[in-house]
């Protein structure tokens, strides 16, 4: 090798080494970040590329967007996707870049996407689409902008509408619920028997229910928004109009008798202030048709009045009838007694001069007169229990019994009856009526005595509690005095028990025992007056017991 050649080679080697060193330094410098820009020859023209890129700010902004930002080629190939898109699809960025955007579209959105994508080539396009990835559907709003001619592709911004859609669904369901609820309330209000209407502060109709419309025979369109005086001019001077004004002042006013001018219907109505947020916004009117009630009440009052008049008339009649029977029975007695007295005397004095037939006839006249006498006496007594005003007096029954014995002295003496009477209680009674009861019972005991046996009448009195009385009493939970009158007379069959208290009920034939059949019904009536009970126990041939139950003093 010649020296010159060797020298050249060495020189070239040195130059290459230097060049390599320079490149190494350049590369190191670039890698170290100590270079700001690169000068690049492009088509023979120098172009400066800044390394510390000026689009750094935009890059950071785009990367940290809440919305997804994509760069795609004209075939839909994704060349850039920011982190929001990773989050939207929940995928690694490296698997998204390089994929075609179409593969992330829901099948139903593909056609719409293609149209939007095509449209974006000549500017921008927007619309709602649905993405689908790993089985998850994501509603999105997509905005596309052409980046031509500076950049061969399309910029896409995607907004997640999931929340918005959920909100929409929620809102619409809420609206649905509200409208359902409103319809329900409206139905309830419409079904109300009350006529309901509302007014604003100027007393213009704001709402009205079906019942009110039916009552007024108008449609809602005729009324809503109109002033109450426009619909009902005659109201102006009425108390109802004043009540509406008072309701506007915060008062609740009640009318119990509003009569409709058009058809005479009667209403009762409330005028109430409508209060929203503690402020009076209008008037609520609730009116109820009470025509039938009022008419019924009026009719009832009329009937009551009629009844009262009739009652008074009846009382008069009763009183007149009672006093008539009292007077009649009293006056009837007189001539009858005389017939008896005179015929009795004739029979006694002159019967020896009579033929057998005449004597028999006289006996029959006397018997008939006696029967009539009994009837009149009983009628007299019965009418007296009705006429006299019952006056309850605290009375010693022993005294009553003494009086009875005295007034019956003749009968007792002639029958040789023995009355065994212990101490009787002092209770509130109508003295004359109790006198009647005792005298009727003793009279009965003597009247129905066994022939050829001395009548023995035993009276007992004991205080018992109400539970020990078999029959139902008028005053429960009270103590009662049980007064029993027992005789040793002929008695009667059990089956007649209640019957003997009925008016004109006689158990025995006319001939055997005299009696009118009124006495015991008087007793029953009197005991009823005293809120007590009377019953009887008897057996033929074994005597009879009358039990009187009278309420004791409380």
């Amino acid at each position, binding site marked *: 090798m010649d020296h010159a050649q060797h020298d050249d080679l060495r020189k070239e080697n040195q130059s290459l080494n230097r060049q390599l060193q320079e490149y190494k330094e350049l590369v190191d410098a670039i890698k170290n970040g100590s270079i700001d820009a690169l000068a690049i020859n492009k088509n023979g023209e120098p172009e400066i590329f800044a390394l510390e890129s000026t689009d750094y700010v935009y890059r950071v902004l785009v990367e940290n967007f809440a919305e997804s930002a994509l760069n795609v080629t004209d075939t839909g190939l994704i060349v850039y996707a920011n982190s929001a898109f990773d989050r939207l699809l929940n995928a690694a960025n490296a698997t998204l870049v390089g994929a075609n955007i179409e593969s992330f579209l829901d099948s139903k959105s593909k056609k719409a996407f293609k149209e939007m994508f095509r449209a974006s080539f000549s500017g921008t396009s927007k619309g709602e689409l649905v993405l689908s990835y790993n089985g998850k559907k994501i509603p999105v709003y997509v905005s596309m902008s052409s980046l031509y001619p500076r950049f061969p592709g399309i910029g896409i911004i995607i907004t997640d509408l999931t929340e918005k859609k959920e909100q929409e669904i929620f809102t619409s369901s809420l609206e649905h619920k509200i409208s359902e609820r409103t319809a329900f309330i409206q139905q309830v209000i419409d079904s109300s028997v009350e006529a309901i209407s509302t007014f604003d502060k100027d007393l213009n109709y704001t709402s009205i229910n079906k019942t009110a419309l039916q009552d007024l025979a108008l449609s809602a369109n005729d009324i809503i928004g109109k002033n109450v005086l426009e619909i009902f001019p005659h109201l102006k001077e009425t108390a109802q109009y004043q009540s509406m004004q008072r309701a506007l002042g915060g008062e609740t006013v009640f009318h119990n008798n509003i009569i409709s001018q058009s058809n005479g219907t009667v209403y009762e109505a409330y005028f109430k202030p409508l209060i929203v947020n503690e402020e009076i916004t209008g008037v609520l009117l609730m009116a109820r048709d009470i025509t039938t009630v009022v008419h019924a009440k009026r009719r009832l009052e009329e009937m009551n009045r009629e009844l009262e008049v009739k009652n008074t008339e009846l009382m008069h009649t009763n009183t007149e009838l009672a006093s008539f029977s009292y007077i009649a029975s009293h006056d009837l007695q007189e001539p009858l*007694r*005389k017939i008896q*007295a005179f015929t*009795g*005397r004739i029979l006694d004095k002159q019967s020896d001069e009579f033929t057998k037939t005449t004597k028999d006839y006289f006996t029959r006249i006397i018997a008939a007169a006696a029967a009539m006498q009994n009837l009149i006496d009983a009628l007299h007594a019965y009418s007296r229990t009705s006429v006299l005003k019952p006056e309850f007096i605290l009375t010693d029954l022993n005294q009553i019994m003494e009086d009875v014995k005295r007034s019956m002295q*003749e009968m007792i003496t*002639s029958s040789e009856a023995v009355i065994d009477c212990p101490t009787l209680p002092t209770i509130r009674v109508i003295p*004359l009526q109790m006198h009647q009861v005792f005298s009727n019972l003793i009279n009965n005991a003597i009247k129905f005595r066994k022939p050829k046996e001395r009548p023995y009448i035993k009276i007992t009195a004991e205080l018992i509690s109400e539970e020990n009385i078999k029959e139902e009493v008028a005053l429960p939970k009270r103590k009662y005095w049980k007064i029993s009158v027992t005789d040793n007379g002929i008695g009667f069959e059990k089956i007649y028990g209640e019957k003997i208290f009925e008016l004109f009920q006689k158990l025995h034939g006319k001939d055997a025992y005299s009696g009118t059949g009124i006495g015991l019904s008087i007793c029953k009536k009197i005991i009823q007056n005293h809120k007590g009970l009377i019953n009887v126990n008897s057996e033929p041939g074994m005597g009879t017991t009358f039990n009187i139950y009278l309420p004791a003093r409380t």
Partner: protein
Amino acid sequence: MNHTEILLVDDDLDDQMFFKDVLSEIYPEIKCNIAGHGLEALLYLNSDIKFPSLIFLDLNMPVMNGFECLQKLKGDNRFKKIPVIIISTSSNPYDMEKAREMGAEHFFTKPADYLMYKENLFRIFKNF
């Protein structure tokens, strides 16, 4: 007690006659004077006569009834010691009680039966 003269005050002529007849059957010796009503009885007693030893007084009478007459009799010192027997068709306990309170000695219900009438009257005369 021995009775020689009594007074019957009754407006009913039949009753007057009957009373007298029955009385004369039991006590033919007793003289029975008669007044038609209360006022007549008082007028009779105030005239100058011998006082009766018993007065039988009906209640229902015109001009002056039995109760008024009884009140006057018992309110007058001259007459109040004469026993008064009320004779009445009524056996109304109220009337009986009232008469007793006003000072009547006895209450005699006129029985319809002749024999009982006679017996009762007999007993009254025995007791007074």
